[in-house]
């Protein structure tokens, strides 16, 4: 285990996790080489919604990590780094059916139990606080102190602040093994790059690199952006999450994964636009959006916020999250290596968790105590799969 701070690091992948790790390693005085197969935020980070949120979490390690994730965003917003790119707002979880109301009641209690500030709004309060919501909203839970950030903006900010120039179009082929249980660097198409430590934050690319194809799976999500509608946007005090989202998450937890789930989130952006999502699909290319999914997302959105009907859709896009078979991310030392680390598998939470995980990983790599508990995410739980030195 490296007891002292390494002098150099090579990071594979400049999504939010790689960029955050680069930033915090630079703060430790480490000289970072950051490589990306394409360019910064080219994959999931550039196609994400960006809820910095615990609203959909159940108590457990993910909830704990997400709470720290939100807290770090707040801290970085207060100290200046994120001041203009983190939007602080509440999340409003909306239940429209009996079934949803039931789940939402239980969910709100669980959130409150975990120390999250939640507020139950009855119909009259809703009309007062959130006039844009349709009367279909039977129960609304306001989750306070949440926020929103756009992945590619966070990446750009981290990279500019760290002064790191990304080597674009540089896919890494493998980890370069050195003496004993040490990684010596990485191998790219243009040759070897040596460093004291190696960090793999390659999203879905991590699977091939670490031979974790059986552990990591891509999960597609489709998202939509509208044109600016400043008045409607200003009338929304926060984002909307449909109670159905909880039902779909629930079904996943029970192991009954559906090939295509829809979970509605409507996020009013700082620009006056709306970001509306999204799907979770086990199949499908990130190049495509289909009318079926788009129509369904939007129908649900209009049912909850009727005035959206007259706002125009500007763009659709899709991205591939990286999911882990057991639902928890992979963060820590790569089994078999003393000085190589991985951080991936954040599925739908990497924007929220990216900065806090990047900071923890930088601490770990520099021999310091990480600020969050990484043990539940230890890659060693899959030690019988994948790459071993």
């Amino acid at each position, binding site marked *: 285990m490296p007891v002292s701070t390494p002098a150099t690091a090579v990071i594979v992948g400049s999504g939010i996790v790689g960029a955050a790790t680069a930033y915090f390693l630079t703060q430790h005085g480490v000289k970072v080489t950051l490589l990306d197969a394409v360019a910064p935020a080219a994959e999931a980070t550039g196609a994400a919604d960006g809820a910095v949120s615990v609203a959909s979490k159940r108590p457990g390690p993910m909830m704990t990590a997400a709470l720290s994730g939100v807290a770090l965003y707040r801290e970085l917003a207060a100290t200046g780094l994120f001041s203009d790119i983190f939007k602080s707002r509440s999340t409003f979880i909306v239940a429209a059916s009996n079934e949803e109301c039931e789940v939402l009641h239980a969910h709100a209690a669980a959130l409150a139990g975990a120390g999250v500030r939640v507020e139950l709004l009855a119909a009259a309060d809703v009309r007062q606080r959130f006039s844009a919501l349709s009367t279909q909203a039977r129960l609304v839970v306001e989750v306070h102190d949440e926020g929103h950030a756009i992945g590619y903006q966070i990446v750009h900010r981290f990279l500019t602040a760290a002064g790191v120039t990304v080597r674009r179009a540089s896919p890494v082929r493998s980890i370069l093994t050195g003496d004993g249980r040490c990684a010596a660097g990485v191998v790219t198409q243009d040759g070897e790059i040596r460093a004291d430590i190696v960090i793999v934050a390659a999203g879905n690319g991590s699977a091939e690199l670490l031979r974790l194809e059986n552990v990591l799976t891509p999960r597609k999500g489709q998202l939509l952006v509208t*044109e*600016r*509608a*400043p*008045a*409607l946007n200003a009338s929304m005090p926060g984002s909307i999450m449909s109670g159905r989202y909880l039902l779909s998450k629930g079904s996943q937890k029970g192991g009954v994964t559906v090939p295509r789930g829809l979970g509605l989130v409507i996020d009013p952006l700082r620009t*006056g636009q709306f970001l509306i999502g999204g799907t979770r699909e086990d199949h499908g290319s990130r190049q495509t959006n289909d009318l079926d999914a788009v129509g369904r997302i939007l129908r649900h959105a209009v049912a909850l916020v009727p005035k959206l009907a007259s706002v125009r859709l500007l763009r659709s896009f899709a991205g591939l999250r990286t999911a882990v078979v057991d639902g928890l991310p992979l963060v820590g030392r790569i089994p078999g290596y003393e000085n190589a680390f991985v951080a991936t598998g954040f599925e739908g939470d990497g924007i929220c968790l990216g900065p806090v995980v990047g900071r923890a990983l930088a601490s770990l790599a520099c021999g310091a105590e990480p600020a969050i508990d990484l043990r539940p995410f230890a890659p060693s739980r899959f030690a019988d799969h994948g790459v071993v030195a």
Partner: protein
Amino acid sequence: MTGRFFDWNGSAIPFREGETIAAALTGAGILHLGDDSVGSEARYFCGIGACQNCLVRVNGAIREACLTRAVAGLSVACVERRDHD
């Protein structure tokens, strides 16, 4: 060719059968169609629906003035003025 009008922010604009809203507004000497939410001046520009500079609200819906035919009695307004009132 007379007697056909639509409403533009409270004034009556005459038009000829088949004409677009943009053509009628231009004919009435109206070139500045209001300011949009980033402060750019809305105006007729490309004429073919591509530039999105000529957006107006037609009976509440956002439309390209250059593509939308004028119809008697339509209510046409700047986009911002009635943004989701």
